[in-house]
C-alpha cells in the first residue's frame, strides 16, 4: 500500500490547492493596500471594509437581495415539502415524472429561461415584465432541483414511507404523521437545501439583470457595477459574503442538530 501513497496524496493536495488559491487571494486582496508584481501584498488595511459598510447603496442592495431570495425560498419550501412528501408516500408512481420536471431547471440555462419568461410575460395577455414578481417566480423555478434533491434524499434516508405507515397505524392522521414524525427528521435536509438555494440565488446575475435590472439594484448588480471602480472593494464584498454564509450555515446546522437527532445526508 505504501508506494502509491505519495502519488495519491499529491494528487489530492493539488486539487485542494487549486480550489483554495482563489479564496486566499481574494481575502489578501481585500485587506491589502497595494499588490502589484509581488508574491504577497505590500501592506494591510481594513479601510475597504469600512468604506463598504458605510455605503448606503450597498446596504440597500443587500436588503433587496435578501428580500427577493427569502421570499422565493419560502415559497419553494412551502410548496415543495408537502408536494415531495405526498408524492413520495402516497403517489410513488408519479415520482419519476416529478423528478424529471423538477430537474428541468438544471437543463435550462439561466439566459434561456430569462428569454422565455420575458417574452411570455411582456407580450402575452399578462404583463408582469419588470416587476420583482417575475424574478421571484423565476427564482422559485431555479431552486427547484436543490430543494427536490435535498428533501427527497432526507426522506429516503429516514425511510419516510415506513415511518408514515407506522404513524398512521398508531392513529395519526396524515397531517400529524407529517408534522410529528417526518418534518422533524427532514429538518436538517430542508435547512441544507435552503442554504444551498440561497447561495445560488445570491449569486444569480443574469435573471436579475435581464428581468428587473434597470430599476431594482440587487447585490449582484451592485457588485458588478462597482467592480470596475475598485478591486479591493469587491474583494471585501466577496469576503464579507463568505463570512456571512459560513456563520449562517454554522448556526443553522448547530440548531438543526440539537433540535432533531437524526442522520439525514
Amino acid at each position, binding site marked *: 500500500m505504501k508506494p502509491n501513497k505519495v502519488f495519491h496524496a499529491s494528487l489530492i493536495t493539488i486539487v485542494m490547492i487549486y480550489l483554495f488559491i482563489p479564496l486566499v487571494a481574494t481575502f489578501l486582496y481585500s485587506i491589502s493596500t497595494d499588490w502589484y508584481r509581488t508574491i504577497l501584498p505590500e501592506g494591510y488595511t481594513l479601510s475597504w471594509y469600512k468604506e463598504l459598510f458605510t455605503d448606503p447603496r450597498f446596504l440597500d442592495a443587500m436588503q433587496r437581495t435578501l428580500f427577493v431570495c427569502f421570499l422565493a425560498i419560502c415559497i419553494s419550501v412551502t410548496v415543495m415539502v408537502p408536494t415531495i412528501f405526498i408524492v413520495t408516500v402516497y403517489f410513488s408512481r408519479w415520482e419519476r415524472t416529478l423528478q424529471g420536471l423538477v430537474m428541468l431547471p438544471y437543463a435550462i440555462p439561466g439566459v434561456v429561461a430569462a428569454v422565455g419568461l420575458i417574452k411570455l410575460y411582456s407580450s402575452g395577455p399578462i404583463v408582469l415584465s419588470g416587476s420583482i414578481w417575475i424574478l421571484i417566480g423565476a427564482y422559485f423555478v431555479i431552486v427547484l432541483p436543490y430543494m427536490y434533491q435535498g428533501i427527497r434524499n432526507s426522506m429516503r434516508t429516514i*425511510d419516510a414511507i*415506513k415511518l408514515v*405507515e*407506522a404513524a*398512521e*397505524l*398508531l392513529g*395519526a392522521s396524515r397531517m400529524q404523521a407529517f408534522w410529528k414524525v417526518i418534518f*422533524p427528521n427532514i429538518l436538517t435536509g430542508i435547512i441544507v437545501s435552503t442554504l444551498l438555494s440561497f447561495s445560488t440565488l445570491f449569486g444569480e446575475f443574469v435573471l436579475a439583470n435581464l428581468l428587473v435590472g434597470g430599476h431594482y439594484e440587487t447585490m449582484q448588480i451592485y457588485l458588478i457595477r462597482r467592480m470596475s471602480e475598485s478591486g479591493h472593494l469587491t474583494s471585501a464584498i466577496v469576503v464579507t459574503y463568505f463570512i456571512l454564509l459560513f456563520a449562517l450555515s454554522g448556526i443553522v446546522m448547530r440548531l438543526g442538530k440539537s433540535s432533531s437527532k437524526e442522520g439525514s445526508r
Partner: protein
Amino acid sequence: MSYVQIDRLSKRFKETTVLNQVSLSIEKGELITLLGPSGCGKSTLLRCIAGLTEVEDGGKIVVGDTNITQLAPKAREVGMVFQSYALFPNMNVYGNICFGLKMKGVKKEEYKERVERIIDLVDLRGRENSYPHQLSGGQQQRVALARSLVVEPKILLLDEPLSALDAKIRKSLQTEIRRIQQELSITTVFVTHDQEEALTVSDRIFVMDHGNIVQIGTPKEIYAHPASEFVARFIGNYNVLKRAEMVQLVGEIVMAGDAFAIRPEVISLVPRGNEASAQSKNGWSVESVVRSMTLKGNVIRYEVETNHQKMQVDVLNTSDNHWIRVGTPVFMRIPAEECIPLQ
C-alpha cells in the same frame, strides 16, 4: 363466528397474482403465523389487513363485528411491527411508546401507568430516555413492539420482526414475543419464512405458496402431517419417497398415495445382530450403512444408505447414541404409522 374473518382477498401487481382469493379466519387471542418462501404473498396479506395495501373488489376483512375493508389504517385499530423497526428517530423510547396514545387523545395522567407497565413488560426499564440509534437491534424491536401494544390494538401484526437480528437474539425474542402475546392474550398475525420460528411461536400455522394458503393447522399437525410435498419439504427435513422408491425400500405396501413423507427423527437406528428388537412393532426394518454424520447441536443427523436409497435420520445427541459412527452397519427401523402419504 371467528374474531377475524378474511374472505376472498385478491391482489394483483401488474401481471403477477400475489394473493389469489385468500380466505381465512382467526380466533380471538390466537397467534397465527403466515409461513412461506419469499414471494408467496404473506407480507402482502399482512399489509392488506393493516390497510397499507388496497385489496381488489370482492375481498372482505372483518374484525370483531366491524367490516374494516374500506377503513383507513388509522381507523382499523391494528398494531404493526416492521422488520426495519420503523422507530421515530426524533423521539426517545418513551416518546415512541407514547406516540399512539397521544394521537388517540389519551390524557397524560391516564396513560402514564399503562406506559410504565408496558415498559416493564418488554423489559426496557432504564432505557426510556435513549434514542433509537443508541439501541441494539433487539432493543429497537422491543420498543416497536411496546409502541404497538400500548394502544391495545384489536390485532397485532408482525412482519418478519426478527429477520434482521442475530440467531441468538432472534431465538430469545421469539420466546419473549410469545410470552407477551399470551400474557395480554392479543390476537396476533406473525409473518415469517423460518419454519422453526413458526413452529415455536404459533397456535396455528398457515402455510402459503404462490398466493394461496396450502395448509392450515397447529404446529404439531402441520409438522407431523404435511398435506403436500411442498409443505413436507418446507416445514421440516422430510425424506420424501415416490411410491416406487418406497416399494423398493420396504417391499409391497397397502397404503394409498403417490408419494410418502417420513420425518428423519421417527426413524431409529438399531445395531445389526439385534434383529429381534428391530422387528418388534408395526413397521419395517431395512438393512443399511451409515454414510455421514453431522452434528446439529442437540441432534445428530446421519445419512444412511440402503441398496436403493439415501435416507436422513435424526437422533438425539446423547452418549447412548455414540455407538453410531460413519461406516457402522445398522438396521433402520421405520414405523408404519409415521409414513405420511402425500397427494
